[in-house]
């Protein structure tokens, strides 16, 4: 299914807080409210125009049961329809898919989606570890920290080339983050530091080093969606949601021997591209905002999402093809490695992709015209959400 829609849906407003490790001047409600106000200003509408609010974050990170009830003080949901959808790391992207479904259904004309997290108020790795089965896997899980991909890549491409590529990806991402005024971690890394970082950054697990890993951030992201008719009325530059796919997996990462099953990323990509007639994603898309929890995963997943083979993804990286002026810019926002307020993180991806299409992404704006964007979300045990955004309604 997918592809065929009852009616088209446009993104008409985007609001984000700055992302940082601490927001001690704001409680959760105030943080949500800041992003809601930015999104309404961006869309040039008021709360009166919103039919339904959808909300998502991970309640166990902050230990709030049904946090949407409290957040309604700042979310604007009072007196309105509201839903709360959470899917772990993918939450933000699931909210965008849900908003697309809700508007396309004809049940609501304008929907506002809110993703947030205030990781400072909880223990992120403890929280993530708590997802594992209490009897079988919890004592084995180390949050989202794993070096399996690093080991596999070193085996496949040679230790030196793999390590260099992962660090190059990391530094490229930091260069993008340094341009983004909202990004949390902006280190100002240079490529000539790669050798040093490869050897001195503290090891978290095996070759997954501290520098490779994503941050723990506070922040909120809000997006507003409208039906085609409303979007054209309300906005002079709506961005259209063309199609989206979600692929979840079983509870454990892989307990059936050494044969790796097809990755959900690859499954989602070939299914989504297949039903939309896209044969060469690297050629078709002008930007890819990918949920990259670590430099190793980010680099490895490019091969999966873009349906590349062999070492094509590493070669493209080595040839600077994922830079802002490369063939397919990846994560102009600085990605998840720079900013990671988990319940919002997967919404930051389509949010940045949409701003790139609008051409008002700020200092990290890609120079050439962006017409077709790809955005992904990641969560759970290799769960994936993949969506296509378009500048024009011409597919």
């Amino acid at each position, binding site marked *: 299914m997918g592809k065929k829609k009852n009616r088209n849906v446009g993104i008409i407003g985007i609001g984000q807080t700055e992302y940082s490790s601490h927001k001690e001047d704001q409680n959760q*409600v105030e943080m949500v409210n800041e992003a809601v106000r930015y999104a309404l200003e961006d869309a040039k509408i008021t709360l009166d125009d919103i039919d339904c*609010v959808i909300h998502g974050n991970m309640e166990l990170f902050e230990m709030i049961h*049904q946090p949407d009830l409290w957040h309604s*003080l700042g979310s604007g949901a009072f007196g309105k329809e509201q839903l709360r*959808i959470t899917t772990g790391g993918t939450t933000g992207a699931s909210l965008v898919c849900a908003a697309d479904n809700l508007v396309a259904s004809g049940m609501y004309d304008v929907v506002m989606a809110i993703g947030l997290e205030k990781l400072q108020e909880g223990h992120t790795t403890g929280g993530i570890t708590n997802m594992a089965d209490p009897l079988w896997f919890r004592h084995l899980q180390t949050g989202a920290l794993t070096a399996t991909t690093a080991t596999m890549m070193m085996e496949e491409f040679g230790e030196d080339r793999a390590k260099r590529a992962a660090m190059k990806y990391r530094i490229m991402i930091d260069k993008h983050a340094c341009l983004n005024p909202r990004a949390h971690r902006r280190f100002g890394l240079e490529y000539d530091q790669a050798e040093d970082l490869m050897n001195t950054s503290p090891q978290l697990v095996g070759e997954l080093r501290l520098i490779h890993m994503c941050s723990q951030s506070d922040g909120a992201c809000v997006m507003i969606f409208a039906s085609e008719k409303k979007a054209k009325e309300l906005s002079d530059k709506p961005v259209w949601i063309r199609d989206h796919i979600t692929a979840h997996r079983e*509870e454990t990462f892989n307990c059936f021997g050494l044969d790796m099953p097809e990755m959900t990323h690859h499954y989602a990509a070939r299914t989504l591209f297949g039903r939309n007639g896209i044969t060469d994603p690297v050629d078709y898309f002008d930007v890819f905002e990918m949920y990259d929890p670590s430099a190793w995963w980010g680099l490895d997943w490019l091969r999966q999402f873009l349906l590349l083979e062999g070492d094509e993804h590493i070669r493209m990286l080595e040839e600077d093809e994922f830079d802002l002026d490369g063939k397919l810019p990846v994560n102009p926002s600085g990605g998840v490695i720079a900013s990671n307020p988990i319940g919002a993180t997967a919404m930051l991806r389509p949010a940045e992709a949409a701003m790139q299409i609008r051409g008002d992404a700020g200092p990290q704006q890609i120079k050439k015209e962006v017409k077709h964007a790809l955005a992904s979300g990641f969560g759970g045990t290799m769960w994936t959400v993949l969506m296509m955004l378009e500048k024009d309604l011409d597919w």
Partner: protein
Amino acid sequence: MKRVAVCAVAQHKCDSNLWYKRFQGMLLDVLEEIQAQTGMDFSEETGVRTIITASDDVFDARTISDNGVTDAVGGQYREEEKMAQEGLNGLGYAMATILSGHEDAVYVAGHCKESQPESVNMCTNLAYDPFYGRAMGLDYTNVAALQARDYMEKSGITEEQLAKVVVRARQWASRNPNANAQDLLELGDVMYAPMLCDPIRTTHAYPVSDGAVGFLLASEERAKDFTDNPVWLTGFGTCMDSYFLGDRDLASNFALKKAAERAYKKAGIKDVKKEVDLVEVMDCYAYQQPMWLEGLGFCGDGEGGKFIDEGGLAKYNVNLSGGMLAGNPIMIGGLYRAAEAVLQLKGEAGEHQAADVGRAVVQSTTGGAGQFHTVLVLER
């Protein structure tokens, strides 16, 4: 508007302590029953591709509670989204997913084991803000008691009328094989039961319950593949009230009235008293049954007591499942209500079947003292 079909429903029997069963196993039972009824599978070509679950991280004590059940709901390489609210909202969202054209069949599954946490009140205390409400000890029980007192004062509803609600709920529950508390009670058993949280007595409150429910929904065209006796979802509406109790008129039904108005509008209902044959409300506490019925428009404001005395509960086939008072988990109380409505509309409710049910209204609530309400309309 196009219609969305409920093709099948399956309920796990509710129980106060299913210690011998994991929630994954409960969901698997429900899934297998749906498959037996409809032949539904998760194949690439003709199977269900989208699953909407309903569960809660705090009750399950698991971050991403849906991660623990992906296998048991067919989520392998499939879309799965968790409604992190009372599960009736999952049916509303499933309806949108089908009407959007994105999917033509959706499996909805909810689970909750209230027996797992040390106390339900401890979980719901976490719904209050960490600065004021939590420190004051607020939870859904004592907040409901504030609302009960306010409602009793304003409506003049009596202890005897509330006892009638509970006695009747147990009578119907005794005929429902999926209900939890099925023991019959006399009026005196209810009226003189110990106070749980004044004015809520122990018998006024729903018992701790474990359960799981599943639904198969499909587009009008696709429904034929699964059933020749579909039930249609025709209206859905929700509304959020204020968070701080001091900002609310607790006896006003502000959010429920708006949610009902929205759902009725979508379903084309003009006069609910004349156009609806059956209603299932999420009555976690006895006072909520008449109060929510007022909010839904089956009687006027403050007339709940009179409605009970004049036979309104029988006239509108209120909570023939036994309702929440007979025990369902709070996170999927609305899903159990909807399951009952589907069985009634299909004519498959067995010993608690009502005659000639053409249209049903189902209500659920999330949050303390009905901060958030959901209304769903179903038709034959």
